[in-house]
């Protein structure tokens, strides 16, 4: 019996040791590579503003369209419940006004809140842990320079066991490593700053990298594409068929900074938000660095790879104003497109009102599951930026699930030259995800 108890105690001690070892914090400050938009000599608040934009804090912490900047409350509907983002204004009672520099750094570097509580990994501390302390504090200085908003945080709606914050300690032990960005001396300065932008700041992986059974990022499949909140974040590896390997540098730069690249379609949904809130503010030199890094991401096909047909026969057979080359199977979809879509997108997919309405070469219309096509039809799409504000209305209230499915499959057939597989049940499911 004594021996048994001793074994238990030893196991507990070893377990605690392993837990603490795996949860150890990297307390180093780290250094960030040079970025054109945030030179070290710049005013700390101006630097913080650029970094906060590059890190796209607004995407999660500002309700779209709200003037309560950084007051939180954006819902994230995950498979196990809903998480609401928090108020990160300097309001002492409801925001982070009472946080010290070390509190703020600990949150970004280790995912731990002011009161020692674990933050949910929906907050991308898995990426922000790479930021240098000086960059983190510049972001804090910027946030604290903005108006305070009194807005209490909304409690999360998570089911057991996901509402147990302490459990994240074990998740962190398994999947999270506190560490600063390590420059790669064998690569150029441009590549290093691109990597810092893509990983530490832009946290591209949070959407574009597949997740494992425990919802942790599977970095062996870095940037190979994933479906999150009903939207598909596309493969952005160098794979020429399924990723962006065949895009030119200027195509990628244009897509990142304007949300559109001729021959590749336009960003919608969360990517349009990323362009609107973040990527369009990058200085051209920094965008080029980001492109240089993305170019170097090893090619991977990913799950359910999408092959883009750049010369879809039906669309090429059509004129600006009249359809041709369609299989007769989907008369309902054709009729809907004729009435609701053709006047802006045109039958050959060139896009009449604006280049943003072009469909040729877009990955959405080449995805036989039609994830993003149905999302855009149901919820609309839009993007505001300098020089281009574009929008497409939502059709979720106008059309039934059967109609949206028929229209999606028609669009996939006509502009992707593929047999769409969207069912009315899929549409019903995607309706729930806004």
């Amino acid at each position, binding site marked *: 019996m004594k021996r048994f108890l001793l074994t238990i105690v030893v196991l507990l001690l070893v377990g605690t040791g392993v837990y603490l070892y795996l949860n150890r914090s990297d307390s180093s400050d780290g250094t960030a590579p040079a970025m054109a938009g945030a030179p070290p000599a710049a005013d700390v608040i101006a630097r913080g503003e650029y970094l906060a934009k590059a890190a796209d804090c607004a995407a999660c912490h500002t309700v779209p369209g709200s003037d309560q900047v950084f007051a939180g409350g954006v819902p994230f509907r995950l498979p196990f419940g809903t998480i609401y983002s928090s108020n990160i204004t300097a309001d002492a009672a409801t925001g982070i006004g009472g946080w010290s520099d070390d509190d703020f750094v600990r949150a970004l570097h280790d995912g731990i809140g002011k009161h020692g509580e674990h933050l949910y990994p929906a907050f991308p501390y898995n990426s922000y842990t790479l930021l240098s302390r000086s960059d983190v504090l510049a972001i804090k200085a910027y946030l604290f320079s903005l108006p305070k908003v009194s807005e209490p945080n909304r409690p999360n709606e998570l089911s057991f066991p996901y509402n147990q914050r302490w459990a994240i300690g074990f998740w962190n032990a398994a999947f999270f490593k506190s560490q600063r960005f390590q420059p790669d001396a064998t690569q150029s300065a441009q590549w290093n700053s691109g990597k810092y932008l893509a990983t530490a700041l832009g946290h591209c992986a949070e959407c574009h990298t597949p997740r494992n059974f425990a919802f942790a990022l599977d970095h062996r499949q870095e940037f190979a594409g994933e479906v999150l909140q009903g939207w598909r974040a596309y493969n952005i590896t160098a794979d020429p068929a399924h990723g962006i390997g065949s895009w030119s540098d200027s195509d990628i730069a244009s897509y990142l900074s304007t949300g559109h690249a001729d021959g590749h379609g336009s960003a919608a949904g969360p990517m349009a938000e990323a362009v609107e809130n973040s990527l369009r503010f990058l200085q051209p030199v920094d965008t080029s660095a980001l492109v240089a890094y993305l170019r170097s991401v090893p090619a991977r096909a990913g799950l359910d790879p999408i092959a883009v047909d750049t010369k879809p026969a039906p669309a090429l057979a059509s004129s600006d104003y009249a*359809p041709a080359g369609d299989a007769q199977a989907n008369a309902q979809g054709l009729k809907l497109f004729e009435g609701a879509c053709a*006047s*802006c997108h045109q*039958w050959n997919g060139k896009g*009449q*009102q*604006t280049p943003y309405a072009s469909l040729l070469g877009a990955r959405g219309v080449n995805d036989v599951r039609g994830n993003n096509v149905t999302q855009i039809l149901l919820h609309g799409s839009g993007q505001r930026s300098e020089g281009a*504000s574009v929008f497409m209305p939502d059709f979720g209230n106008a059309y039934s699930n059967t109609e949206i499915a028929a229209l999606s499959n028609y669009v996939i057939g006509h502009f992707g030259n593929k047999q769409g597989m969207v069912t009315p049940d899929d549409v019903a499911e995607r309706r729930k995800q806004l």
Partner: protein
Amino acid sequence: MLSLSVNGQSYPVDVPDDMPLLWVLRDVIGLTGTKFGCGMAQCGACTVHLDGQAVRSCVLPVEAIGNRAITTIEAVGNTPSGQKIQQAWLEVDVVQCGYCQSGQIMAAAALLARTPQPTDQDIDAAMAGNLCRCATYVRIRAAIKQAATGKAEILQTIGSTPEGAVS
């Protein structure tokens, strides 16, 4: 300050960049012939021409226009196809309540300009996005054909066959 070319005239307009063209036409420039219908490119009432192409002005942010020439219902009669279409519209007496008709005429004029002899299929594809709650569709089709051929279209009239008879 943007400068718009509307019906051959240049208008400097001081409006937000993302204001839809329809608002600028009606509320700023004062050309109220173009109508607001649904506000989401679904009914066609707001159709105008941009370099001769029919576009829905209610979803067209004014900054996206650039220096392309805008033509509205007020001036479409100065174009050859618009002139033919308006004449046929009168002869066939297409209009019922009239609200959608400026959009219908703009869409039909654009069709005729690019396809001088449209088939039924061409007409369907071009006009499907223009709705008419009075259901003047039969007369619209007839008027487009009449404008194309210059020959009077014989409209299907209500028969005098007695009720219950097989025709």
